[in-house]
């Protein structure tokens, strides 16, 4: 079996890898590229532990072939924090103790970010439906939902603040 050469972008950086035709994107991320944030839970698209974005669209990396990444833009949990600076969702998950074993956490974070990118002010029901594709078997969902609500609130006020500063700057200019 000869490998397939794939050129893609992961978290904004160009990446080239070689994979077999039947390898999933999850296999490639974990076994070939050392990006082990995405976890393998069920391998059937039910648990969401392997959540990534493909061209900005939330998906399970276990349901994507590695070869399909050619020319696409992949986003993983590794791209969420900016250096040492955690994303508000990550900070709030810690603050609310919204994790125990942590296997589901990267998937929840990627899915929650995708949800908040589209809907910055979701209701509790919207959060619960939005995260229905992510399973947690230890913490339960209440703390996770509260962490997402709190992060959303913080992100909204940060956005309002920066908009205000911009308007003030414009006025001064």
């Amino acid at each position, binding site marked *: 079996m000869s490998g397939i050469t794939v050129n893609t972008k992961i978290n904004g950086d160009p990446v080239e890898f070689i994979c077999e035709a*039947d390898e*999933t994107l999850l296999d490639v991320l974990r076994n070939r590229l050392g990006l082990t944030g995405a976890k393998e839970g069920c391998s059937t698209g039910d648990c969401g532990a392997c959540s990534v974005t493909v061209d900005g669209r939330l998906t399970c990396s276990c*349901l994507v072939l590695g070869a399909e990444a050619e020319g696409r833009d992949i986003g993983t949990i590794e791209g969420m924090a900016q250096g040492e600076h955690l994303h508000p969702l990550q900070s709030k998950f810690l603050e609310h103790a919204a994790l125990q074993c942590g296997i589901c956490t990267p998937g929840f974070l990627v899915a929650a970010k995708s949800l908040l990118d589209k809907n910055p002010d979701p209701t509790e029901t919207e959060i619960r439906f939005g995260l*229905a594709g992510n399973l947690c078997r230890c913490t339960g969902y209440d703390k996770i939902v509260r962490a997402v609500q709190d992060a959303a609130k913080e992100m909204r006020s940060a956005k309002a603040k920066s908009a205000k500063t911009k308007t003030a700057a414009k006025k001064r200019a």
Partner: protein
Amino acid sequence: MKYERPTTLKAAAQMLAKEKGKAFILAGGTDLLVRLRTGFIEPDLIVDIKDTAGARSIQKTASGFKIGAAVSGAELGENAALKKAWPGVVEAANLIGSKQVQGRCTMTGNLCNASPAADSVPALVAAGAKAVVVGPKGKRTLAVEDVPAGPGRTSLKKGEIIESLILPKRAPKSGDAYLRFIPRTEMDIAVVGVGVNLTLDGKGIVTKARVALGAVAPTVVLVPAAAKAIIGTKLDKAALDALAAACAAACNPIDDKRGTREFRIKVAGVLARRAARIAYKRAGGK
């Protein structure tokens, strides 16, 4: 296993037709990859059709909507014009799986996977949707209800690929709806699914209707008797009773852990009433 990503459907059809081993088409992959990973299938060739022309576009044409075979559920849900014209079809497609699955799953895949419980299929059948098929011998068009041949089987021949689904142009005062029963609130497979599509006249009388049932027979079924029960009525109680009875009579369900035969037959009638009421309201009826 080989993986190919051709840029034309003609090339894709030729690759599939030429392959001597087991060949499969990949669009969203939400069914195919599960079967691949669980060892249920061992493909020699996978043909990814996402890069073929029109595969990922929704086009509004003079004769309706043309939905490429690789358009995802999420993309359907974000198309305001499609949602306005065919809310029942879009809500059915959007019930499939999670947000993650919605990012990839397609209605064409849902149709070709040929599960009797496929959520988008009863809505497509009720809508009178057509499938445009490209094969080694050229193009043909068939009614969506003629695609599934049995659980997991379709009427497509070797080398044939569904290029797009066509939803017809909407007559004024029309509406559609899809409802399903599942024991949970999300992420489950339909125990019963019902799609209703209807058109009213100026007085609110149903002039045209199509009713389709899912998960109550080996394939999704179109039920002309159910449509007949509501045509010429304003969906009064007698008409809804006749609709429910016609739907129950068309059921030939299995008994399994998700629902007994008796339960499915009863629920088909209940959901048909409710879906018809929603479609009627959407069509502007009171």
